[in-house]
């Protein structure tokens, strides 16, 4: 066929996708860059017909903001804590699931349930589990977690209510994220495990390989492509963490009295929008983008060395 003609056809077929992408992805993306570099941009023309000047004022404001620093710290900590824990747990659970035959399907379903549950709803349930209901300064009832740790003789801890510490809040959020992240990881890793040829394990058995050595020398390397995928996606997800905190603490992003205590970078971006600080919001988004880019690049570099495709 005439190549010019076929080119035209190709563009025609691609057009719906390209148009949609252009309107809803490319344009917003580029516009974010524009807004980030217009000093003090607020979405409206400056009074008196003045134009916004181009510069890095927005970035300076964001980076100099005390709250933003706190949010950045929260976000990074969330990632650093939850990604290793949830990945390790998911791998162990997947290996365990893979080795049982009888009720595998049942457990698979049970472990998958968090994935199909709304994250705000889960957050509210977590709040209820960790809460303590007070009248005045007197605690009336405790949530189930405090009841359970009470059995072991541990004093009740104020996890999420007014006056709770940053550390206690962090614990709850991490707990939530790990639990919520497990199903997808288990699913991916289990798929990887089921693809591993059983003969590798037979060969290992004949050579008298110990369970631990089999796990680290055979299982982990053979599912390493899945592990790499899971780790990269969960870092990206972790840096975008937001809805879990809304679910647990509500829009205040922290316990009553210390709102914003658990807020994240995405939370900061949302905060800026109603205040017409579009410039700051864009700058924060770009900072987040840069962080994710760097982390993913590091991930990619490490996995090139460690992953066996």
């Amino acid at each position: 066929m005439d190549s010019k003609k076929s080119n035209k056809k190709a563009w025609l077929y691609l057009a719906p996708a390209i148009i949609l992408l252009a309107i809803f992805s490319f344009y917003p993306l580029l516009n974010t860059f524009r807004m980030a570099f217009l000093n003090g941009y607020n979405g409206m023309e400056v009074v008196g017909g003045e134009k916004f000047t181009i510069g890095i004022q927005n970035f300076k404001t964001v980076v100099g903001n005390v709250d933003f620093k706190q949010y950045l710290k929260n976000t990074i900590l969330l990632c650093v804590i939850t990604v290793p824990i949830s990945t390790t747990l998911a791998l162990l659970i997947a290996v365990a699931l893979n080795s049982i035959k009888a009720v595998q399907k049942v457990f698979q379903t049970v472990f998958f349930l968090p994935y199909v549950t709304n994250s705000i709803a889960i957050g509210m349930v977590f709040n209820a589990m960790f809460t303590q209901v007070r009248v005045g300064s007197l605690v009336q009832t405790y949530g189930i977690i405090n009841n359970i740790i009470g059995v072991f003789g541990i004093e009740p801890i104020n996890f999420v209510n007014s006056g709770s510490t940053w550390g206690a809040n962090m614990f709850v959020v991490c707990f939530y994220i790990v639990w919520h992240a497990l199903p997808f990881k288990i699913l991916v890793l289990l798929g990887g495990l089921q693809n591993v040829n059983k003969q590798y394990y037979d060969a290992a058995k004949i050579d008298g390989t110990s369970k631990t050595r089999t796990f680290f020398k055979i299982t982990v390397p053979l599912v390493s492509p899945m592990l790499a995928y899971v780790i990269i996606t969960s870092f990206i997800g972790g840096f975008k963490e937001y809805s879990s905190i809304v679910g647990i603490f509500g829009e205040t992003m922290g316990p009553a009295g210390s709102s914003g205590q658990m807020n994240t970078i995405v939370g900061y971006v949302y905060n800026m929008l109603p205040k017409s600080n579009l410039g700051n919001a864009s700058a924060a988004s770009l900072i987040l983008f840069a962080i994710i880019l760097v982390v993913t690049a590091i991930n990619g570099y490490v996995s090139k060395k460690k992953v066996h495709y």
Partner: protein
Amino acid sequence: MKIVLQNLTKQFESRHKKGETVTAVNNLDIEIPDGKLIGLLGPSGCGKSTTLYMICGLEHPTSGKIFFGDDDVTELEPENRGVGLVFQNYALYPHLTVKQNILFPLQNLKGDQKMSKNEMLDRAQTAARLVQIDELMDRKPNELSGGQQQRVAIARALVKTPRVLLLDEPLSNLDARLRLQTREEIKRIQRETGVTTVFVTHDQEEAMSISDLIVVMKQGIMQQIGNPQEVYDNPQNLFVAKFLGTPPINVFSGKILGGRLYIGDDCIIDIPGEADRDVSVGIRPEGFIPDENGALRCRLKNIEVMGRDCSVILENDASQNPCIRAIIDSDISVKTENGIASFNIKKNKLFVFDASTEERIYF
């Protein structure tokens, strides 16, 4: 190391509750002499691989015993049996180099057996040299050809100097030329190490060419054991006769009548003292001698010249195969009369089997 299988039986439970259990290996009694190369031969599903897996310990027998020398190893875990196994698809760890793959079994050793790093490297190097891959030590398995992978798998199986080497369909993943070469190689490695070796195959040519002993199996039951030539020359039943030999044996429906063996109306030979009954007659392709006054008359269909000898395609109403194939010297001419060629039959290439039991009738 002598291997003795005693009444070895393996049954698999059906996956459905009411289904029948499948007997993969049925009451197998084999004694494998020390330092020999043994081929387990049979069509797929005959239980030969299951037997191999029971010898190495990956499958547990339903009943019966396995001895290595005088040790009863039936209840031993695979790693304590001292076996090396080469898998059909080699099962080389894809993420490890050739060297790491060969070292892997050594690194598992514990307690007194533990070796120093140099000792392990020495052993790996020796094993690699034996199979001639010592120049490929730093490659990954996916950078090797099938034949090279096969060698690595053998080196890995041999590096612990096992008492018994087991090979599961060692040549099935190789192309035809490599197969010829590799089977010589296996024979050589076995001779050099002197390790008792059992290998499984469904290819009779492969088994016959390199084995000291072959064991022919069918549906979990041993049919015959013996050295390849002996089994070929003296099959105990029709199955063994049909299974060995290329081109395959020609089988005719015949009958014994008054002490004579008939194929169709042709009286082939005298079998004095045998009761009258229906029989199957097997004649090896090389058992035909063209003779104008020969006993067996067949319609000549075609002659395929192959240089050294030629293959004569014949037809006979009593034949159980669609066509009969005879191999004769190319300088002997086949004379026909009205399209009918006559042959005398070499007596030692003709076997008679009972039509219903398929057991050999000796005469």
